[in-house]
């Protein structure tokens, strides 16, 4: 230790203390912001979007653009009417995320009023009515998608054949319209329309062969199948999901448990009754399962907070999805499943709360 040397007090700048701010501790905070989180989610969403554009062309981009713009506009309009800060609310980016997710959940060619109605449903009914970001118990994009599916079933099930789908595809053959071949079916809707064979014989095994064979599954994997913009290209979805996990934005348990549960249930049913439902791999690669499991079920606001809660939540989603896909009227059940499980989240949160430190006296490994 040494004696302090600087004793010259002539030209040093001393604080006056006039602009001191008083606040509660902590006085430093992490650089993470809500807007940054939303920005990262948007970044991850770019991959499925790019996949959709590759397979469906620029009209897909137009749909996503419309939903995003309408969502942001709806948010701004609401804030203006409700007297809430417009700039701050819009800039947190949550409306844009909802918009993009909703866009990726639409078929590639929808009339402009579908994005408009969807955006209003998502932002107004799904979110702002509850008080805005964070208070909504249901995922706004899912509310909008389910609402559109129920209200405008025709517009929401016009599927465009993706790039690379030729005449050999069963979808095209079965659903070629007399006038032109601009629409096709999704593998799931074909599966849903195939009569079930409740035995375990040769015919049962052959029941889904037309749409569920290794050759087609590979094409499904890359994205050659009818479906919504965001859900076709599996590799793009996986890249986006990995990004989200790396950014620590989603709980990995949700997609893993969700997809796992669907695989197990469809696997078991397929093993005993191959004529009732296609193979689990078919279920994983078709429809919106992967996209929903990675981007919709994982929405922070509407899934449980704790890891245990997330596992219950995802398993519930998986069970309902499988049940609807196998036995329900709708070919696809992810949106309904997520919406239903969203309603269960408060209960799950209640039962899966953390155990505070110090409430159990002894633990293993005590010295």
């Amino acid at each position, binding site marked *: 230790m040494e004696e302090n040397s600087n004793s010259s007090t002539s030209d040093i700048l*001393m604080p006056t203390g006039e602009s001191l701010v008083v606040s509660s501790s902590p006085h430093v905070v992490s650089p993470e912001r809500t807007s940054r989180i939303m920005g990262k989610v948007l970044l991850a969403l770019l991959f499925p979007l790019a996949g959709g554009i590759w397979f469906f062309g620029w009209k897909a981009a137009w749909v996503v653009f419309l939903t995003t713009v309408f969502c942001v506009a709806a948010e701004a309009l609401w804030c203006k009417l409700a007297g809430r800060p417009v700039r701050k609310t819009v800039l947190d980016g949550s409306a844009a995320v909802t918009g993009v997710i909703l866009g990726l959940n639409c078929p590639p060619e929808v009339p402009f009023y579908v994005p408009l109605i969807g955006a209003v449903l998502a932002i107004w009914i799904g979110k702002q009515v509850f008080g805005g970001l964070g208070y909504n118990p249901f995922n706004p994009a899912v509310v909008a998608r389910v609402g559109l599916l129920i209200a405008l079933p025709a517009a929401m099930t016009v599927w465009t054949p993706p790039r690379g789908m030729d005449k050999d595809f069963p979808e095209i053959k079965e659903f070629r319209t007399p006038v032109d071949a601009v629409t096709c079916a999704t593998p799931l809707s074909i599966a849903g329309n195939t009569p079930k064979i409740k035995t375990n014989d040769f015919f049962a095994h052959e029941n889904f062969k037309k749409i569920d064979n290794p050759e087609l599954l590979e094409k499904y994997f890359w994205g050659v199948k009818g479906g919504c913009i965001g859900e076709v290209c599996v590799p793009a979805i996986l890249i986006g999901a990995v990004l989200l996990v790396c950014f620590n934005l989603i709980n990995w348990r949700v997609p893993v448990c969700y997809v796992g549960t669907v695989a197990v249930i469809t696997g078991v049913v397929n093993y005993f009754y191959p004529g009732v439902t296609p193979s689990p791999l078919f279920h994983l690669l078709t429809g919106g399962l992967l996209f929903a499991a990675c981007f919709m079920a994982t929405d922070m606001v509407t899934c449980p907070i704790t890891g245990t809660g997330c596992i219950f939540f995802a398993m519930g989603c998986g069970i309902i999805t499988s049940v609807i896909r196998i036995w329900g009227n709708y070919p696809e059940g992810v949106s309904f499943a997520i919406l239903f499980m969203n309603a269960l989240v408060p209960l799950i*949160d209640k039962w899966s709360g953390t155990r505070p430190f110090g409430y159990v006296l002894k633990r293993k490994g*005590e010295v």
Partner: protein
Amino acid sequence: MNKSTRSVMTFKNGIYPVYHGKELSEGAATRIAPLLARYTVPVAQNAGKPPEVIVKAGDKVKKYQLIARASGFVSANLHSPVSGEVKGIIEVPGATGVPAQAVEIISDGLDEALPPLPEIDWKQADPKELLDRIAACGLVGMGGASFPTHVKLSPPPEKEIDTLILNGAECEPFLTADHRLMLEDPHAVLAGAAIMSRILGIDRIFIGVEMNKIDAIEVLQEKSASYGVRIVPLKVQYPQGSEKQLINAITGRDVPAGGLPMDARCVVQNIGTAAAAADAVIRGIPLVERIVTVTGPVVKTPGNWKLRIGTPVIEAVRLAEGVTEEPGKLILGGPMMGFSQRSFDVPTAKNTSGILLLSQDQAVNYESGNCIRCGRCVQGCPMHLMPCALAAAIESGRFDIAQQNHVMDCLECGACAYVCPAKRPLVQHHRRAKAEIRRQMQKK
């Protein structure tokens, strides 16, 4: 360094601040502050009952002279840091925001000290004698809570104690006072540890040090063998230096909710307190000065100074050659748990480990955006609470829900508010709920 086979220890949950700010001052050797003309020594520098002032205006005092006597068991003596004349008992801004009584002493410039108390040979001495000396010298916990040390060292007989832990984690960003102390005076720290363990009659002594102070770990490890002390490297994780988390990291024990470290058969003391204990026993001088880190992005030359208690903060800033721009926030203590001040007249005390000045850009933090239920606060809470749910309940005035969800166990460590992306003032909510619930319980 001599890496032992044990892995780096830590506790569950907690956070990893991205910017530690320690590099500002960790390389600056401790300097002794020059004598000032005026000191305002706060009277209540210990948790529990404040001591009783025994000097009055006009009295001449010498350095180390007793100016306030402990007024009970949970109370600590207070000594004059300087020789001079007592000008009076005045009101100064307190560190927690409530004005405090302070003894104003005008230095006579001579810095005359009373003769130190006789040295005690602690290896042979009666534990009671050591304990009395520590009480006489007015030692309090120097980590922040300022609990009188002699109280902590005399646990009730029905509580069995087997471990003494010295807290050298210094997990708060920016602070380097304990780091410098371990580096520069390892013998005092280790001797203090040995003295305390002799008082407690135990021989399991650990010093927990975070891995960002490798040089201090090396220095301590080199010298620790002869004192029977084990150095435990800890993971750099906040709040590693919280008593309960430290005990958990080192011994694996959980302090029961609402309990004290002694319920986990441990006593936890700060590094600084140990060094002060060694000073009291070996050198016979009471606690009148301590190492304080004066730092922050706007401080011109951040560093560590040995400041006498009662030094006005403005003088400490002058030692650091002032500021580069007008600061937006003055914090006594670390940035995570320290108190923001409204004026530079606040004096330092026995528990002031740091004086931190933040720029005006860094000052305004809280926006109270909507909770997006991201769960980062839950992952970060070292007490495994759910701060987001608590805050939502508190904002709606539902203190009953907050109490059911264990808000009373909150440490106010600030991990939740640090990680919150919506910048919600979670800690303030919890404080409010704790105050409210305590008030309701008192009413009953």
